[in-house]
């Protein structure tokens, strides 16, 4: 079938062409800008620490280590085992501290409390402290993100 009139006027066609070109231009401009302003920062998959530094810890004490840009907390439990936490409050990201005499983690920002296993118990924190997987291999203490093999 032959149409008697074109479905587009010349103006509509040209406007569409120009608009499409502008849109494509905007996207191709924005994409690199967005890429640039969000830097790729991932937290580490694992950190390796010399076990010797942590061997002599008393039970119910903690030592900090660097977990990427955040503090990690290695805690020696009463039975001599170790637990590793990300030492950052699950409320709004402040660094927490361990109070050995109360056997609690404490966040000073909005008075958040966690028990010695990192379970939130009072104040605003909505979740337990994040735990990290821990293994001892020879001289080294290997700390991994949960879920990383």
């Amino acid at each position, binding site marked *: 079938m032959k149409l008697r009139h074109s479905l587009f006027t010349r103006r509509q066609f040209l406007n569409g062409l120009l608009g499409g070109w502008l849109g494509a231009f905007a996207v191709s401009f924005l994409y690199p800008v967005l890429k640039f302003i969000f*830097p790729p920062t991932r937290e580490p998959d694992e950190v390796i620490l010399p076990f010797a530094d942590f061997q002599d810890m008393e039970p119910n004490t903690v030592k900090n280590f660097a977990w*990427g*840009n955040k503090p990690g907390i290695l805690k020696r439990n009463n039975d001599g085992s170790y637990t590793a936490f990300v*030492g950052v*409050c699950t409320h709004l990201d*402040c660094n*927490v501290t361990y109070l050995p005499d109360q056997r609690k983690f404490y966040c000073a*920002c909005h008075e958040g409390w966690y028990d010695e296993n990192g379970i939130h118990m009072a104040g*605003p924190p909505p979740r337990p402290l994040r735990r990290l997987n821990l293994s001892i291999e020879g001289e080294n203490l290997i700390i991994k993100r949960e879920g990383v093999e």
Partner: protein
Amino acid sequence: MKEKKVKKDIRSWLDERSGLSVVFHFLREKKIPQHKHSLWYYTGSAILLFFGIQVITGFMLVFYYNPTLEEANSSVARIMTEIPLGWIIRSVHSWSASFMIAFVFIHLLSIWITKAYRKPRELTWMSGVFLLVLSLLFGFTGYLLPWDDLSLSATKVGTDIPRSIPVVGAWVTQFLRGGEDVTGDTLTRFFGFHVCILPIFLFALLAVHVYLVQKQGMSLPLDLESKEEKVNELPFWPNFVYREMIVWLVLIGVLFTVSIFFPASLEKAADLMAPAPEGIKPEWYFLFLFQMLKIFPSKILFMNGDTLVVLLILLGGIAFFFLPLIDNKPTERKGKIITVIAYLFIIYAVGMSVWSLL
């Protein structure tokens, strides 16, 4: 006589090319109404005064300040101990910021309560709300720059708050921080916001705001507007300007007195790995928010407490922005209720802030 002619020639030469005489003519004709609420008319120029002081002291501080992890704290320490009169400059910058924000609040509340935002001044109000947000962002980014213990924790909390905004939250946090965590990149980025990005936006919006104020003239209180008889008026130039200058002089005096007798302090340099120090507090204008975050329980109806706080603030902000459109019948019942809400809001904000200090 010759001198006079040269002056006139120069003026007409300039005017032919710039058309500025229109502006001067406008200012010469401008009138400021006089009535029992006229005092509020001075708050706008007080904000401008403190903003001007911020610009000048900011220029000075930036000559010595170093926005890096290693140098930030020590460069501020250097400004305060080694650079001649540096401690006053920094103290004035810090105090003037507080004064400016205080006057922004007063300005805005007075407009809310006298309903000066009613038609045709809705856009003036809306541009003003943007200016408020920018001022708060100035304060928030500036607070981090000395990079001490308190400012680090405040920034960690502050930049984590947007994370609970649905959909875009995590992006906003990453954008503000320059990554997942607060690091040296955050400091550099905040510096960029504080001295480059925010000023550009602020100047642009300020121009719009001031233009709109001139275009619409001063608003009259509701009860005067309906009256028949003419309200007393004061010429803007020179009478009102002289009065403003008196206010400015007093304010400058107060500002410098406070800055000298209660100089801005500097804590020890922040450590990204150290636990948050006891007694962290944001700047006073964020205290009510801080207290809300503290008292909201961790879980309310399927939501985290902080998510609810953020959503409330967001909704409040949007309502606030559209206030002139919501409050469109100022003399009727609805308008009265909204005025009562304004007073309740003030009581709430002050109450929460005081509570946070106990």
